[in-house]
């Protein structure tokens, strides 16, 4: 392998490592939410600084590659995509922290009078995150397109939760502080899905050189 190829491999490997770390954070945040697992929540908080460090490291690697190699074609697409995925991953990590912070806050509070079920949205979000990272690792545009199709389902779940929680707040205003935590968690999970969608779109650009952003899902194919 020639030196410049090793540099590209290092950027790729570091990005995959960050992706793995973020996927674990999302998984742990979801697990801590569904199972009220405090230990997992604290692990997510601990991992945040490592994710932040990796974001800086990846940006630096990408900038160096641009300066030294002036990449074109698939190399250019890779560096552009690496910088964008890096930002999306870091934001996913932050949103996982939001989820566990609210979850920890809820643990010391009495439950809402009516159970809010996060399982469906959590499963969807986690599968989107894993799918987008799998697509990146395998450079597989088909897997990436599969991720794009899930985004609407996440939005529906989030809207359903929002509707349920708003009703609860209207019926019993004393629930508002706890209910707001639920709304923020639903919003954070939905935002994680949005970032997974961004990663999937970037993978399609990386692999096929076409930009599918801001198109209806059906047109993206």
């Amino acid at each position, binding site marked *: 392998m*020639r030196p410049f*190829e090793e540099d590209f491999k290092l950027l790729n490997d570091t990005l995959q490592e960050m992706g793995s770390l973020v996927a674990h954070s999302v998984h742990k945040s979801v697990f801590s939410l569904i199972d009220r697992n405090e230990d997992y929540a604290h692990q997510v908080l601990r991992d945040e600084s490592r994710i932040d460090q990796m974001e800086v490291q990846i940006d630096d690697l990408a900038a160096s590659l641009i300066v030294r190699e*002036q990449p*074109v*074609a698939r190399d*250019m*697409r890779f560096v552009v995509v690496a910088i964008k995925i890096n930002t999306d991953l870091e934001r996913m990590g932050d949103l996982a922290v939001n989820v566990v912070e609210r979850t920890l806050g809820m643990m010391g509070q009495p439950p809402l009078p009516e159970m809010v079920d996060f399982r469906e949205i959590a499963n969807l979000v986690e599968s989107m995150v894993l799918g987008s990272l799998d697509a990146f690792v395998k450079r597989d545009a088909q897997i990436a397109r599969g991720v794009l199709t899930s985004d609407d389902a996440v939005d529906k779940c989030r809207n359903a939760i929002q509707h349920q929680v708003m009703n609860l707040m209207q019926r019993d205003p004393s629930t508002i502080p706890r209910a707001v935590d639920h709304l923020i968690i639903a919003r954070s999970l939905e935002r994680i899905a949005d970032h997974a969608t961004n990663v999937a779109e970037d993978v399609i650009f990386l692999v096929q*050189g076409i930009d599918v952003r801001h198109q209806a899902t059906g047109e993206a194919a």
Partner: protein
Amino acid sequence: MSTSRTAPSQPHTQMSPTSTESSSTAQATTPKMRASNVNFYYGSFKALHDVSLSFEANKVTALIGPSGCGKSTFLRNLNRINETLRDTRIEGEITLDGENILDKDVTEIRRRIGMVFQRPNPFPKSIFENIVYGPKINGMLKKTSAAEIVEKSLRRAALWDEVKDKLHESAYAISGGQQQRLCIARALAVDPEVLLLDEPCSALDPIATAKIEDLLVGLKQQCTIVIVTHNMQQAARVADTTGFFLLGKLIEHDKTDVIFKNPAKRETEDYITGRFG
């Protein structure tokens, strides 16, 4: 003259796997120049294989590829400079405004299609005499004064301000970058319709290179430009379309943006990303 020519063996609209004229832009309008099914031989060695490529008017086309791929050979066929070499032969058709240049008077063709070479090659004369040489032998001085042509040509080559006070000094007294722009000015002095450049910046520093590149972008308003370059970034910066040659074949020709962002052919991508070979 040992160069011989044969008529094209196929209609020039025909596409073959080895003649990859893929540019939609190049085919969108009537091209200024068009090479159709060009084969070229140095003795028994076939240097070009069925190359078809169109050059749209007032555009810059870059030809890239590894050493020995045939890009310079192809360029040198576009104004028949290759005919000065012994034991060479060309097949196919090269048209300028629809007329086959291979059937035309070669002096007239070289006035209409100018050429600038890799190393600056000013004549051992003054700057002034370098510029007026072409117009003089082409009988152009009757209509326009020599001083007028010199100033106009040097201005077009973005060199006037730097040499206007030493026009009668030796052309060798100016820097390499200035000499190369002088050669461009000399080529422009006869008002060519097409300007061919064979690695014009390979002997120049980055500042001189930048000046030539800026010049090319401005010059395309006035003529059609074809440039052979080993500098990928230069092709990306100045060219509207780019053609990639390999082993005497045109592998791919498309908008420069497409070639450098998402080329269609694996060979092109391997070459421009440095993985070739």
